[in-house]
């Protein structure tokens, strides 16, 4: 594996972990949802970088699914589970 790509993936992973702090703190459900959206975007980037690093094109399709997932959870959230209490 290309060390530069691996370092890039590790760095993106670190920035994503900052989002967990936001899930812990809240204070509203919308704030926690933001962290889930953050993981959607960083997940796409990670999948694309790893696909290039291991030289497997099929992994790029996983990135497509990540992209869809962020929107899907956001819709489920606003349709059903919204409550400012948590």
């Amino acid at each position: 594996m290309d060390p530069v790509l691996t370092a890039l993936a590790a760095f993106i992973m670190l920035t994503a972990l900052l989002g967990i702090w936001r899930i812990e703190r809240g204070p509203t459900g919308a704030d926690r949802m933001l962290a889930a959206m953050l993981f959607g975007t960083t997940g796409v980037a990670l999948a694309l970088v790893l696909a290039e690093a291991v030289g497997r094109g099929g992994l790029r399709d996983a990135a497509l699914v990540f992209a869809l997932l962020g929107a899907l959870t956001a819709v489920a959230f606003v349709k059903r589970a919204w409550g400012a209490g948590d």
Partner: protein
Amino acid sequence: MPSLELTVRALEYAFYAAGAFFFLAGSVGLVRFPDVYTRLHALTKSDNLGLGLVCVGLAVRSGSAIIALKLLVIWLLVLVAGATACYLVAEAARSAGVKPWTREAQR
């Protein structure tokens, strides 16, 4: 021609570095900004730009037109999904009565 190859390499790495910078800025914004709405600003703009730059870097690396197109399609999908999700969350927060943070209220 090794010098040309080196230039392309440097260009690719520059895109990665810029993309990583914007991912970091988005996460810092998510942690530092004071309310849902401002955090949404950081998330939608900064992270989408970071992903775009990483995609450009990867497209330069792959050197194939069809893969570059595919990366473009993925980026556009993330843009549309991100902007829509951002609108939905902002609207939900507004109608649930989440108060926006203002500078005056802090003084």
